């Protein structure tokens, strides 16, 4: 009985707190994405034929943990072979945050070329403990 009470408390509180945190994080991501709209992150290797003054590698990484609610929902959904929407929002959040951090590192750059995203799983294979996403690209500065 006590186990069940602890489970319910954890389940409900992790759902509420996790959802609140995720909402706040998404609001923050959208605000920063708007601010950094002037710096394009491109997946191509070439851009306009302007003389380039400087080029450097920029990276951004983030580790996002899944909450207790997400872990329960994911194990339920994967049992029935459903879409893991709880994991989708977590991945989306981590990727966008990584790209933003990469952009923030390239202060004053004119473009970021050849942007690559890669992710690594943190923790055990069976649960969605967390995910690490790394974004890297080449920031270029045009000669003024």
């Amino acid at each position, binding site marked *: 009985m006590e186990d069940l009470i602890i489970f319910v408390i954890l389940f409900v509180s992790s759902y509420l707190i996790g959802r609140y945190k995720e909402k706040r994080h998404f609001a923050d991501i959208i605000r920063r994405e708007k601010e950094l709209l002037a710096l394009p992150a491109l997946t191509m290797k070439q851009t306009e034929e302007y*003389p380039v003054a400087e*080029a450097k590698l920029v990276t951004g990484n983030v*580790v996002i*943990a*899944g909450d207790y609610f997400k872990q329960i929902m994911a194990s339920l959904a994967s049992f029935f072979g459903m879409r893991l929407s709880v994991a989708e929002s977590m991945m989306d959040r981590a990727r966008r945050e990584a790209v933003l951090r990469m952009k923030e590192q390239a202060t004053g750059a004119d473009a970021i070329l050849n942007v*690559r995203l890669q992710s690594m799983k*943190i923790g055990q294979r069976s649960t969605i403990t967390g995910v690490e996403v790394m974004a890297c690209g*080449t920031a*270029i500065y045009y000669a003024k």
Partner: protein
Amino acid sequence: MDITNIETVPGKTITAHYGLVCGSTVRSKNAFKDLGASLKNIFGGELKSYTKLLDETRQEAVDRMKEQAKSLGANAVVNVRFATSDVAAGAAEIYVYGTAVTVR
């Protein structure tokens, strides 16, 4: 030292190639474990200690690659790639490789 993940260093010309250079670091995942991380695992959110650790690990791998390139007499590394692999249970390897070149 110029490092890019495209085939050239924009604005400069490559004058010599020195071949593949790489750097790797293996970190155990148990070292990541702390109280904050396990608490965060209940409520979600960013694991700042993990983020910082992985960032430092990657930086260390890049530094090792730079050192190798420098010892060859190169002044830039182009086409840099990052890779990760599970070496053993609980340990991860971060691997960085690229082509050492001289640019002018």
